[in-house]
């Protein structure tokens, strides 16, 4: 066998090796606080900016500052946009930050069925020491209802797409029915497609 006979095979192996290395996907941990512009759709940066604006405004509002640790109830944010937005992620972030502030309290509205089940179990099952049983009828009533909605306007022409989001949140006094606080956040994003490609 002459030297160099295996050259094509060697070249093939090298090409395959290069292709394999080049095509290998790479996983990295990223900065969760970084700005994300992968697409023009609603994203993590929008969620973070909305939560920050709402928390800043709410904590400095007279409605909260003049009350002693008021109890809030979070209602869902109505999504009136054309896209799927997990609005619970927005309210969860706002609620977590507000709880950590120590300035307000929240009732766990979404866990009411579980709470009722547990209280019934403690009362009726016979397994729970009655001295440690929690009485029903001692839950704290909410002072305010936190509610809101998100809307969007999308326009597209030629290579340009413009998306405008507006989120409005209200704090409704459950005793008076009055809106004691309101805030809105506007976000505008645009995407210009390149002449070649996507």
């Amino acid at each position, binding site marked *: 066998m002459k030297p160099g006979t295996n050259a094509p095979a060697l070249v093939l192996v090298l090409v395959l090796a290069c292709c394999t290395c080049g095509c290998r996907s790479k996983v990295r941990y990223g900065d969760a606080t*970084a*700005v994300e512009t992968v*697409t023009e759709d609603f994203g993590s*940066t929008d969620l973070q900016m909305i939560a*920050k604006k709402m928390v*800043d405004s709410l904590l400095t509002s007279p409605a909260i*500052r003049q009350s002693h640790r008021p109890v809030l109830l979070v209602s869902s944010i109505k999504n009136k946009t054309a896209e799927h937005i997990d609005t619970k992620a927005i309210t969860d972030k706002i609620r977590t930050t507000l709880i950590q502030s*120590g300035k307000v309290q929240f009732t766990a509205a979404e866990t009411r069925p579980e709470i009722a089940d547990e209280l019934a179990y403690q009362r009726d099952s016979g397994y729970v020491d009655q001295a440690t049983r929690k009485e029903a009828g001692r839950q704290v009533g909410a002072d305010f209802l936190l509610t809101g909605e998100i809307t969007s306007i999308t326009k597209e022409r030629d290579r340009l797409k413009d998306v405008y989001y507006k989120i409005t949140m209200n704090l409704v006094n459950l005793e008076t029915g009055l809106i004691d606080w309101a805030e809105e956040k506007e976000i505008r994003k645009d995407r210009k497609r390149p002449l070649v490609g996507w």
Partner: protein
Amino acid sequence: MRIKTGIGLKAVSMLLLALMGLLSPACAPTTTSNVAVGQITDGEEGQGLEKDYIIKDKALAGRIDVLDVKARLTGKFLEGLAMVHNRKKRTVDFEYKFAWFDDSGFPVESNVSHWTPDRLYGKESRWIRALCPKPGATGFKVMIRAPHPIER
């Protein structure tokens, strides 16, 4: 003929390298550019501030100035403001982030502290602000950098 092809390839390679060189600054990750630190020193009113500016990204530092830094206590919460100014006539995009710290210099973690995209039009001056949603913060640091988004 061979020589001509060789020169052609060389020219194409050089052109590609030049293009890569031109494109690379736009793609290269940028570091923190301006850092302004505000600390309450005159009691609870927060009128007096120790200010410090650290400029790491000279490209953006040449375009954006941090003219003033203020802090005040709103209830138990520290509110920070920084006056940013665009020196040039062209619009400049940037990102900013507030970091909070207590009396001992320990960071006060906040889950609404993130990089916020913003834009300054030509010669525009504007306050950027944030509130630390946890009590106990007595100072803050605002970091400004060139856009560094996660994108396709």
